[in-house]
């Protein structure tokens, strides 16, 4: 962009991509941007992903950067409501974005305006040890019954079916997303997230009953409540567990840990209730311009740059983020998981695409419920008590 060459001043970018690979990717991308705009002085700050989540509200009000990463949907609502994010509807009116990013527009929209742009998204699904499946003579399941019977065989072989680390709670949210969407459908799930449905509703209870089935049969590894998601990886790597319901970002560390692509494979979470359409989690990570940013012009240019087709192709390829580009013009990397995921999201998710539980539900409810999920996973017999508690939380949280 010729006009952009005139950009000057300072551009401060805050990133939460603290893991080594994504961090390198983003830094490379920013270097590229910097090269295009020699007049800009770019300062990049990478903050630990978990810490970032608590710190964002501080830096949005003080010491504000010009660009910050965040997440779509409800997760950005408090900042939108507080007027801390810049309305970037103007960007979305530009054809380059309007046309190519249409699929994610909904996730970026609150009150009819757009508040940021996505830069990546990724599918969720079940990553599993193909070699172990083969060893046990199992094939990818498609129904709940198959899933259960597969799992039974795995458990019988002395393994756990699924690894998971729920110390930071959100991983349990993923399981809930899938179980509930498969049991009650996407719309119900969103209503629940919006506080429109009682947690003591029988349909919710059904979701939990399905979940309990897995728990009771010993499908999950023990002590998951003490592990982070990374700490749960070795179980799968070592073959103590065979599968991981996770976002695509799990692939990179699995590979790093020494699993070859022959050993890992991916399947879509199975259908449970045949009456509901399949829906998927595909969390979108986003860039925003804080309302207090100093150099909004450069920030906008940066956002344009990030979502441009080439950049999208580049940063999301398997060697980098290993995720899906948001721009329709971009090409998906040849990586088999990305392809499968892209395929799944674009053609086999008729019910809809959810952002993820903690992005769809308001923060407080997300916190309370995920804590409940964790407790449930440890003590499935407490289901009623937990649901009653969540119901009380719902009444209080949505009431305000």
């Amino acid at each position: 962009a010729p006009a952009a060459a005139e950009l000057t001043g300072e551009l401060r970018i805050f990133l939460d991509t603290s893991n080594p690979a994504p961090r390198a990717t983003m830094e490379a991308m920013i270097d590229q941007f910097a090269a295009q705009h020699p007049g800009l002085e770019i300062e990049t700050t990478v903050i630990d992903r978990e810490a970032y989540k608590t710190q964002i509200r501080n830096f949005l009000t003080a010491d504000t950067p010009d660009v910050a990463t965040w997440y779509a949907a409800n997760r950005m609502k408090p900042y939108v409501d507080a007027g801390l994010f810049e309305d970037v509807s103007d960007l979305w009116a530009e054809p380059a974005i309007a046309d190519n990013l249409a699929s994610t527009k909904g996730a970026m929209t609150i009150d009819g305006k757009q508040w940021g742009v996505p830069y990546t998204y990724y599918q969720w699904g079940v990553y599993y040890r193909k070699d172990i499946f083969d060893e046990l003579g199992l094939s990818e399941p498609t129904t709940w019954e198959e899933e259960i019977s597969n799992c039974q065989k795995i458990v019988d072989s002395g393994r756990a079916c699924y690894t998971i680390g729920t110390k930071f709670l959100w991983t349990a949210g993923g399981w809930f997303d899938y179980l509930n969407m498969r049991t009650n459908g996407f719309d119900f799930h969103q209503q629940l997230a919006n506080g429109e449905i009682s947690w003591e509703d029988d349909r919710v209870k059904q979701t939990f009953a399905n979940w309990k089935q897995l728990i009771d049969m010993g499908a999950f590894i023990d002590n998951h409540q003490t592990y982070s998601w990374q700490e749960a990886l070795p179980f799968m790597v070592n073959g103590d567990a065979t599968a991981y319901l996770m976002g695509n970002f799990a692939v990179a560390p699995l590979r790093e840990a020494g699993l070859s692509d022959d050993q890992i494979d991916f399947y879509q979470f199975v259908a449970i209730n045949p009456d509901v359409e399949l829906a998927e989690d595909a969390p979108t990570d986003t860039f925003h311009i804080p309302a207090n940013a100093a150099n909004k012009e450069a920030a906008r240019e940066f956002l344009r740059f990030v979502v441009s087709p080439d950049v999208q192709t580049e940063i999301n390829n398997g060697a980098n983020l290993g995720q899906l580009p948001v721009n329709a013009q971009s090409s998906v990397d040849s990586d088999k998981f990305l392809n499968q995921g892209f395929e799944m999201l674009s053609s086999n998710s008729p019910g809809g695409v959810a952002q993820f539980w903690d992005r769809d539900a308001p923060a407080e409810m997300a916190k309370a419920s995920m804590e409940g999920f964790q407790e449930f996973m440890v003590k499935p017999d407490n289901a009623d008590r937990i649901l009653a508690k969540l119901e009380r939380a719902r009444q209080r949280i949505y009431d305000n």
Partner: protein
Amino acid sequence: MSAVDVPEQESWFHRNQQRIAPWLFLAPGLLFFMVYVIIPVFQSFNLSLYEWDGLGAAEYVGFRNYEDLYWEWADRDAFYISLKNNLIWLLLYLAAIPAGLFIALFLNQTVWGIRLYKSLFFFPFVISQVVVGLVFTWFYDPTFGLLNEFLGFFGLGRLNVLGDERFVTYGIIFAGLWPQTAYCMILYLTGLNAVDPEQIEAGRLDGAKGARMLWHIILPQLRPATFIAFVVTIIGALRSFDLISIMTQGGPFGSSRVLAYYMFEVALSEYGFRMGYGAAIAVILFLIMLCFIAYFLWSMYREERGH
């Protein structure tokens, strides 16, 4: 006498030097302390009457935050658990006092190298609680933790201390006891140094020995050390935050929360946006602490008057 030529015409400042001087000396410290400590305490009281997400405008809600706390209490919810855990912390943390005394007695000898031993025993107190938390997280790790190696060695079952809501608080307290015991140990070691040797000798002549000597003659003399150990331990227990934050983040499912952590969680953590609510929790914590502060000040007041 004086180099000044007009001794009788002293400036007003000079004449009132002794009256003004203390305030000048106090001013900077007092200002800082007021701005950063005293006023914020009252601000917190005030804030606890508001609902505020830390971003937008605050809304006055009267005592509703406290009401909510009450309901959480009544429902045995997070606040109840935090408060209960705080009590457990308070009680069990006190174990640092006898433990510290025990180690101090063990080390109160004059063999070669004992100074080094004493310093090494003191080590845990010097390192950050963050590191302590990390160390103990690994110690408890259900797969490879040293604890389970031990239990296995003695033929006992494995334990997931930090993953089990029955044990988690005790597990963290145990980790906290490690540095706290070291602290109490040092207090007692210095206390033992100051024990009047003639009283010990008088005790020996009176036929007191071993435990009876300890109970009747040594411990009463260690009262000042015990008092400080008590105060710092209580305060340590009520302030406990770092360990919980590092080891469990209040989990599993919130069962290891204490008030200090809980308020951080509701006000500033990833999903927490309830500043006013957090302030209300802090106020409760403050009120509990106030009992001990009052006790401490009272005994200090008595000391001051006694002199």
